[in-house]
């Protein structure tokens, strides 16, 4: 009896509550019943339609899979959204702040409850899946793979819908979010069925390493999006003065490291194609830098609840500074990621600077533009970062910077007949400049002057706030050391205390 009690004590309270509510509620009962009825009817129709085919098992499996995907990727995550929205009403989520539950436990509880419901749906469909295996045409490994992959995607989609439920308490906006999520889930189910059909028909493809890599990439991206949503959701329901930046920074850093490790392993394989991985690098770099636009636009002041979490050790405080909240620290974080990115890139033999290889130059060029786009506009907007609209603008500023640097010179060119500038053929236009470098033509000098010039201006514009960010973390760290020294002295003086 001791072991079940031990488990019972450690069960997530939200999980227990949500599962009980779901099992008692109408939504789950109706969903569950409809899934079973639909699976039975669709199964019968598929059997009748393909009864004489050799691949009757495949047709039957696809019919059942359609029901399974609709329930597990569509209905169950949607239920998670509805349940979490209901719990958030009337200040319930605020009251949760007063309990021993942490925001991540609240979200994890909802996610686990959703996972349990997916498991129940899967259990209900298990006889149908077993029958599809007994019919000719479906490989067992494919069947298990598809079920596990769907379960993973169901959890990831639930994670996104759960986090989306905390986005707003406004009823109209909630309906808009609901419609958007419904459309997205419908799209996912619509895309999943043809993909599974392709896999079932060519089951040997699952043995192909390239296909395995593609599935691994998809799974990795889904997990990353789910983690991103999870952290975003927990930050959303945590207290405004709590540290809402560090978890996201750690996630982005982890994602960067995982991406680079993946690329590193890929480059070592005999089938590696340098160009393919270079593009992967670029995609990874920009995907990673996108949220760091938010970091660089954060308010400089460390909140009072963040201050008490700063490391007391000066060296540790210095090392973790890029992960602490604040615009200057955000710029530092961007620099850290780009430096890591650039240095690992240069370690690979296939992308080392080479006279015949323009990729190295293109990397450096992208690096300079990346630093500029993510840190120059935010540095200029930093002064007003306490205002929410400015912070929103700051988050979108890298994209706006790319558009602005292409559009404004083009407009000037049109007004003053500046050669081909009006046709976006100027060194401030990133795509045009990138193309010039890729083609190794004679316009390279102005392209480099602009890129390096903007980079230098960016460094100068950010210098003050980066120093301020470093100083702020060191100041708080010193304050904590002093407080600790006071406490130690007091305890020495009054041991009983």
């Amino acid at each position, binding site marked *: 009896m001791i072991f079940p009690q031990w488990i019972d004590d450690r069960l997530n309270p939200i999980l227990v*509550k949500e599962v009980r*509510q779901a099992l008692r509620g109408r939504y789950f009962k109706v969903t569950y019943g409809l899934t079973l009825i639909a699976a039975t009817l669709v199964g019968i129709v598929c059997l009748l339609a393909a009864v004489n085919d050799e691949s009757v098992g495949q047709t039957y499996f696809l019919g059942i899979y359609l029901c399974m995907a609709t329930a597990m990727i569509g209905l169950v995550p949607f239920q998670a959204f509805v349940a979490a929205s209901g*719990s958030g009403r009337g*200040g319930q989520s605020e009251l949760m702040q*007063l309990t021993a539950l942490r925001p991540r436990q609240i979200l994890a509880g909802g996610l686990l409850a959703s996972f349990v419901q997916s498991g129940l749906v899967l259990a209900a469909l298990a006889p149908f899946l077993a029958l599809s295996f007994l019919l000719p045409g479906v490989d067992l490994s494919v069947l298990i793979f598809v079920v596990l992959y769907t379960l993973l995607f169901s959890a990831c989609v639930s994670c996104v819908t759960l986090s989306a439920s905390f986005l707003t308490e406004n009823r109209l906006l909630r309906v808009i979010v609901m419609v958007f999520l419904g459309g997205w889930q419908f799209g996912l189910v619509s895309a999943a069925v043809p993909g599974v059909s392709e896999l079932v028909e060519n089951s040997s493809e699952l043995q192909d390493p390239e296909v395995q890599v593609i599935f691994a990439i998809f799974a990795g991206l889904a997990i990353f999006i789910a983690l991103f949503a999870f952290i975003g959701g927990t930050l959303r329901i945590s207290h405004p003065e709590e540290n809402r930046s560090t978890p996201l920074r750690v996630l982005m850093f982890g994602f960067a490291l995982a991406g680079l490790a993946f690329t590193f392993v890929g480059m070592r394989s005999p089938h590696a194609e340098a160009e393919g991985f270079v593009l992967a690098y670029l995609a990874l770099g920009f995907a990673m830098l996108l949220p760091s636009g938010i970091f660089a636009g954060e308010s400089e002041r460390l909140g009072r609840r963040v201050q008490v979490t700063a490391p007391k050790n000066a060296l540790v405080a210095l090392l973790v500074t890029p992960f602490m909240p604040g615009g200057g620290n955000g710029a530092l974080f961007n620099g850290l990621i780009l430096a890591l990115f650039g240095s690992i890139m240069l370690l690979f033999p296939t992308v080392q600077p080479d006279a015949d290889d323009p990729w190295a130059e293109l990397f450096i060029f992208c690096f300079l533009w990346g630093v500029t786009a993510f840190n120059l506009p935010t540095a200029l907007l930093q002064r007003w970062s306490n205002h929410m609209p400015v912070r929103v603008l700051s988050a979108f500023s890298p994209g706006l910077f790319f558009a602005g640097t292409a559009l404004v010179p083009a407009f000037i060119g049109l007004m003053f007949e500046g050669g081909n500038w009006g046709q976006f053929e100027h060194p401030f236009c990133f795509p045009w400049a990138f193309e010039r470098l890729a083609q190794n033509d004679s316009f390279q000098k102005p392209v480099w002057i602009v890129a390096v010039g903007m980079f230098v201006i960016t460094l100068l514009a950010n210098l003050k706030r980066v120093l301020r960010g470093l100083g702020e973390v060191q100041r708080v760290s010193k304050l904590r050391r002093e407080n600790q020294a006071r406490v130690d002295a007091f305890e020495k003086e009054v041991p009983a205390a």
Partner: protein
Amino acid sequence: MKILDVQSISRSFGSVKAVDNVSFSVSAGEICGFIGPNGAGKTTTMRICSTLELPDSGDVLVGGCSVLADPRGVTRQIGFMPDAYASEQNTPVRDYLEFHARAQGLRGPARGKAIRSVIDFTGLKPLLDKEVLALSKGMRQRAGLAVTLLHDPSLLILDEPAAGLDPRARVELRELLSVLAEMGKAVLISSHILTELSEICDVVAVIEAGRIRASGRVTDIQKQLSPDALYYMRCISSVELLQRFLLEQPGVDKVRADKQGCVFSLAEGDQALADLLGRAVTQGLRPLEMRPLTADLEEVFLSLTEGVVQ
């Protein structure tokens, strides 16, 4: 021992200063009535004490833990009941209490014991299988109070707990709070129903326009407002005769007559009162009753506040 120590807190929302340099304290076993007109800053102060809001300046200590530096330490020690307690659909009272007990980190036999204890205390036993949403307002407040008490907090913060309750439910709530205070818990309670508060509160803090107008025992505040003691006197003779007699007496002030007797203030102590009574007897007024008047919270409140709305 101070359980709640509010130290010069201020909080602004845009240009509105909701709480302005507010300080007061509540000790163990004390019930503190937090009174003020609508928009005075009561709820904001209570939310700051509960860690749901942060002060722009100042600090609040609950059992020595700061809401700024150690909010988790504070939440472990408080039970906060907002004016409208949130509740869940499809949830019977039993599950509701169990969920909150789990959420408060109660494990094993301690969880069951805590749930049983609050059920007994609040008298929710007959309603355990009823859905929370189906309960009456009074019973839902009881369920809310039960949830608030689950983790045995040393400080209870109750925001308008009596609002919308019928007279019987109010009396029952008042009795529950008195028992809690006897158990050594500090209670900070806000209410508009001042007669309710005056019967159970040991101390009050009067807030208006974000500022504390007065705090302490009601009698002490009354003394601050009017240093002279108030008395009531009733005689067999006519009220007019009594009023004339009082107006003639040295040290007597603010004489006010009603249908049966007079209220008056007397600056000096017991000796002057005995002399006054003796004179009344010798002058043939035939006194029936003479008693000191206890401070009236409503009067204190009206004297202190001006009805300023932010």
